[in-house]
């Protein structure tokens, strides 16, 4: 397909989206909590083609000191895209878009965290996009809130986000790149606190009628709640109740590489030797 040739699709006729999804269906989403050992809390997220790492450090002393607020903690969010995360190489430094997204992410998370509990401190939230295909800011926000909860931060609620909008003459949820480039595309990232349905992030690009808008927000909130269930499962999966086991410890010791010869069982030792060979 040449560059100027436009895709002529009408979702009203096809009843199905370009990648086969229903109109209110999100792309396959999976989250894993606690993937970065050096961070206080972390998460890895795959949402369609988007792949995102989030790490949380803190609360810690706010530096430089003039950024500290004596009444509450400051959330320093940083959104970065890897240079290989987009088809054409991205220059690695933060650009205008990165700075804007960092700002809105931090403000959305600030609403969820009990920041007044930690005066004069900062909470560092770092999200790195390693692969992207539309909707990376909502993916980052979803991952960051899981990472915050994983760090044991006191929070009002998790933040669940999704993209909503219009493409090819139909209202859709979680747009991908092809839909975002549609001639009549409207793209709205939305993030809510699922319990109170309070909206913490809302940006819009395109034109909608009021009727369409009302319907979209409703479907958006429903989609966010689906995302919330997956976030919840990711956090619960990290800890499983039951009897204590040594297996966990063996795994952990293997990770930290402390005195492996003595600590791990004979079987594990054999495996280690094999790997060494």
């Amino acid at each position, binding site marked *: 397909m040449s560059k100027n040739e436009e895709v002529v699709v009408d979702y009203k006729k096809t009843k199905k989206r370009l990648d086969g999804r229903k109109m209110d269906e999100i792309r396959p989403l999976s989250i894993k909590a606690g993937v970065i050992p050096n961070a206080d809390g972390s998460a890895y997220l795959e949402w369609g083609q988007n792949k995102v790492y989030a790490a949380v450090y803190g609360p810690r*002393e706010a530096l430089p000191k003039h950024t500290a607020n004596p009444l509450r903690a400051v959330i320093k969010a940083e959104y970065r895209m890897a240079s290989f995360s987009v088809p054409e190489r991205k220059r690695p430094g933060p650009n205008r878009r990165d700075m804007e997204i960092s700002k809105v992410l931090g403000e959305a998370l600030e609403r969820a965290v009990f920041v007044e509990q*930690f005066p004069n401190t900062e909470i560092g939230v770092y999200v790195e996009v390693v692969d992207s295909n539309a909707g990376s800011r909502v993916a980052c926000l979803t991952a960051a809130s899981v990472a915050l909860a994983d*760090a044991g931060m006191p929070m*009002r609620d*998790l933040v669940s986000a999704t993209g909503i909008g219009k493409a090819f003459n139909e209202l859709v949820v979680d747009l991908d790149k092809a839909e975002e480039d549609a001639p009549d595309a409207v793209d709205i990232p939305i993030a809510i606190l699922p*319990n109170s349905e309070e909206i913490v992030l809302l940006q819009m690009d395109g034109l909608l009628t009021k009727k369409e808008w009302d319907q979209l927000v409703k479907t958006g909130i429903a989609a966010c709640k689906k995302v919330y269930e997956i976030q919840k499962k990711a956090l619960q999966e990290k800890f499983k109740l039951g009897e204590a086991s040594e297996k*966990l*410890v063996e795994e*952990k010791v293997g990770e930290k590489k402390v005195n492996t010869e003595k600590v791990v069982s004979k079987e594990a030792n054999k495996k280690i030797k094999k790997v060494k060979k």
Partner: protein
Amino acid sequence: MKKIVIPGELLSVERKRLGGNVFVSEGKIYSKVLGISDDESDSASVVPLQGKYIPQVEDTVVGVVGRVVFAGYGININSFTESFIPKSAVREQLKVGDLVLSKVSNVNEMREAELSFPKRLFGGEVVEVTPVRTPRLIGKNGSMLELLAKGTNSEIYIGKNGRVWARNGNLELLKKVVLFIEENSFKSNLTNSVEDFFKKAVKGN
């Protein structure tokens, strides 16, 4: 039944006695952190699974001397802010990297801890654990601590800030057991499993 709750999860719609790590919104009780909650108990509370150390009065902490200034020492107690011990409070001079056992005598609104009765720790080793899990290392009335000291034959101090200091005895075994307790801190019947752990270790040697 005990279950794992996430921040913002609904704990109870009824009125209950409020324990730690919960908040009330429109008459309903919600969890504040990732942790474990027992919904059969008559108070709503959550035991956290992760988190930083927040100093509280009467806590025993193991601190590290981070810097030396004219009037005293800056002590790192694994919290957001550094604590201070004046030179007049200690008998001998301390160096950067020395270990100090101390009690938190006061905490101000900025969560800065004031330390009292500093005691220098000589030799030994420090194992770091997640601060919120130290209560399991101590156990009810210090039962777990007793077990640890007996099993490894060493002298142990447990700081609430997530630092375990030990001297003499079988330190390698102690490190293993502490890691075992930390990893399984949210599971039931831990004292018995730790006893089994020691029995196995004795057989292994």
